[in-house]
């Protein structure tokens, strides 16, 4: 794309959702128990290197679910948290909802990858409500996952469709949880949440720090 954020016309290439998902998958170690949020984070499952065993958890009571089945093999009793049909891998298990959230809240889930409307530089997460009062509210398991998983990674676009930063100094949307986000993967960069702001891990090729900062509503530290 042509990046014109500073009026100087730099060329950089945004990561596609699959490329962001692949980048996240690189950071998931063998043996991790992982919950993937509904939507774009689900793509991470397709990119986990085959030599690593990663056990996927779904809030509705599954450990060790696998890819979407062929149409003929769809089973309405075997769906994920997004209510989409899945399969069960060898070694998988089923359990009731209170046990499922005990896994989450009890700190047994190593990693949860969530989408977000906003992430603040202190690690606050907003991903359940836009705060518009006429919307039907729905929270699902977002707050439990955000408060309970050992690590929270966020996968999102760097800005809104209108170009507004989604990495902000403080949330303007209702919070899902406070101080929980460890790392953010966007179409432009990977950033860690550290004391006093975001720490740049990497930016996409061709994107200057100046341009990244122009698209970010929070402090960015560099190594």
């Amino acid at each position, binding site marked *: 794309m042509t990046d014109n954020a500073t009026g100087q016309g730099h060329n950089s290439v945004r990561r596609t959702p699959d490329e962001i998902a692949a980048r996240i998958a690189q950071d998931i170690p063998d043996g991790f128990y992982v919950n993937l949020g509904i939507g774009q984070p689900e793509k991470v499952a397709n990119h986990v290197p085959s030599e690593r065993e990663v056990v996927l958890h*779904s*809030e*509705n*009571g*599954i450990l060790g679910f696998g890819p979407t089945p062929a149409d003929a093999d769809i*089973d*309405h*009793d*075997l*769906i994920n948290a997004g*209510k989409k049909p899945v399969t*069960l891998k060898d070694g998988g298990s*089923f*359990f*009731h*909802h*209170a046990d*499922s*959230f005990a896994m*989450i*809240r009890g700190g047994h889930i190593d990693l949860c990858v969530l989408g977000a409307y906003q992430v603040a530089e202190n690690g*606050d997460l907003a991903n359940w*409500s836009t705060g518009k009062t*006429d919307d*039907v*509210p*729905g*929270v*699902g*398991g*977002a*707050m*439990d996952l955000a*408060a*309970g998983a050992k690590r929270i990674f966020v996968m999102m676009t760097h800005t809104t469709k209108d170009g507004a930063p989604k990495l902000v100094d403080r949330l303007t949307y*209702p*919070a*899902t*949880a*406070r101080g929980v986000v460890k790392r953010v993967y966007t179409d432009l960069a990977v950033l860690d949440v550290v004391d006093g702001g975001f720490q740049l891990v990497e930016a996409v090729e061709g994107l200057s720090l100046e341009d990244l900062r122009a698209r970010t509503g929070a402090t960015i530290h560099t190594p």
Partner: protein
Amino acid sequence: MIDKQIATIEAAVADIRDGATVMLSGFGEAGHPTDLIHALLDQGARELTIIANNAGNGYVGVAALINAGRVRRIVCSFPKSSQSVVFNEFYARGAIELELVPQGTLAERIRAAGAGVPAFYTPTSAGTPLADGKEVRDFGGRPHVLEHALRADVALVKAETADRWGNLTYRKAARNFGPIMCMAADLSIVQVRRHVGLGDIDPEIVVTPGIFVGRTVTVAEPADEQALIASGYRREPT
């Protein structure tokens, strides 16, 4: 002799009263006791409080119950979906009360009620609008929110297999809220695909022991909600 099996689905729900608090198992369609809910719709109880993860889709199951004006209040984690037309319409015109509860807190409040724990502290929702007005206390330097147990008069649950003592097994991810709702209601009414003889369920695989179960009824071929919704079916009281 103990025999919890009821001959008909109508008889199984016959004495649910107006104003009752009713739990409904299920996560989306999986484990949703659609047939029991339709029997309750026909039975006619009104002014119900419903406790369920979702608020239904199309015009079947809990959506049909709401559409018939039977539900005063719903306690739920995720009422909206692409097909939650009835709930959305009732909510927009203020015709149904909503208590929104994070899904894990909902599950634990139900479990706590069944286990005789009146309240508990959880980190979930601390620092968010869903903690407004609730007691917050620090444990280990982290804020936790006080949440109260959630009980019901009746639980309508879908399981797979029962024996006459009410021991239950479930099928795959349709288990979800079933076991904890059976524990948390004064009377749990369970639809199962089949009944088997006492002793025919391996005790090692019983998920809900019969002590938590009040009544069971056979529904050999449960309603397929997705197929009904796709066909445009609207369930009305009969």
